[in-house]
């Protein structure tokens, strides 16, 4: 037992492969036998992983979910940005160029709306709960775009650290909500073809939310959504401290 424990602790990444494999296998069994295949195995696996992340965070009091628990550290490497982006790029081998081209202009429109709409929802909520200065309002609004746009914008315009934390929390909750509710809302959003996935990628933002949400809905849509979503954070970081901040300043300054 001690030998096994040591082997797991010393070989984090490999252990993570085994953990995720077991989780996916259990999820597949649940999907087939309990839900009759109506809920995708990957959706159940992602929900289960989020539940485990809560458990890990509650046990350790740290920020990186299950990977902070001894023996599960490899999950941080396996699920980190490098692996995620590498695999997303690999899915481009499945993109049909003719499909991607059709949604070009629409993707740009979706990206713009996906930055501006969440921003002003965030600003509106913050305003309703008593935040009045343009810097805090902009930072919280930017957090509603993605959890990277929030702190980048906040740092650029000099927000206080508690507002930054609130901004990041907003973005993290948004990403998790997108992960959970994309498969639920897929029919309502008509999310069933490459063009719609690109619109989704632009509007829903957050690469992590989009990639997990599409994976749980229809694996084949992933590269189309990711292709657009990858520009989301950049656009947000560009507009947040500049145009959007100036607008907020003009409105509430």
């Amino acid at each position: 037992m001690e030998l096994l424990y040591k082997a797991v602790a010393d070989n984090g990444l490999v252990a993570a492969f085994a953990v995720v494999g077991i989780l996916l296998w259990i999820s597949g069994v649940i999907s087939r036998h309990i839900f009759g295949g109506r809920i995708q195995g990957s959706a159940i696996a992602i929900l289960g992983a989020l539940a485990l992340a809560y458990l890990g965070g509650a046990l350790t009091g740290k920020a990186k979910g299950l990977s902070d628990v001894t023996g599960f550290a490899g999950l941080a490497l396996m699920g980190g940005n490098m692996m995620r982006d590498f695999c997303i790029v690999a899915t481009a081998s499945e993109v049909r160029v003719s499909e991607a081209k059709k949604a070009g202009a629409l993707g740009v429109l979706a990206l713009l709306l996906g930055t501006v709409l969440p921003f002003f929802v965030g600003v509106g909520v913050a305003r309703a709960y008593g935040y009045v200065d343009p810097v805090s309002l902009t930072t919280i609004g930017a957090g509603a775009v993605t959890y990277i746009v929030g702190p980048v914008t906040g740092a650029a315009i000099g927000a206080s650290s508690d507002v930054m934390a609130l901004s990041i929390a907003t973005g993290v909750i948004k990403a998790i909500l997108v992960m959970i509710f994309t498969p639920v809302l897929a029919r309502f959003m008509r999310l069933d073809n490459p063009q719609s996935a690109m619109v989704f990628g632009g509007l829903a933002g957050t690469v992590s939310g989009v990639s997990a949400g599409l994976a749980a809905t229809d694996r084949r849509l992933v590269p189309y959504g990711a292709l657009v979503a990858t520009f989301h954070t950049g656009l947000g970081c560009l507009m947040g401290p500049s145009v959007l901040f100036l607008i907020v300043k003009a409105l509430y300054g």
Partner: protein
Amino acid sequence: MLVMFGTALLAVCYLLGIVAGDALGILIGVKANVGGVGFAMILLIASLHFAHTRGVMTVGAERGVTFWAALYIPVVVAMSATQNVVVAFKSGIVAVLGAAGSVVVCACMIAVINRVIERRGVDPAWQNALPSAESD
């Protein structure tokens, strides 16, 4: 060895894409990578297309790319397991409402736009033409 060629091609595209994204970020004065993954994807699509038309793409090399594409869902599951869910639960009403509000607004916007696309007519052929890549 041939499998490695595919993975190496993928890696080179990835790195060049990230460099392009960082360069674009510096160019427009943003402290972030702007579309690096997107550039990498476009590079990979272009180089795979080039390799196919030249006939130098082997089944083995192809596998060096598709393996990583198939690993995508497991990686996303691992990513989900490392999210800071506790903070998301605990943080105040502002964060929850801000996030939920923007998700609802965006979902409605997506529904509107996609219904417009649908009315213009979507080619249903892609459903049958794409190889099934379900990996769960």
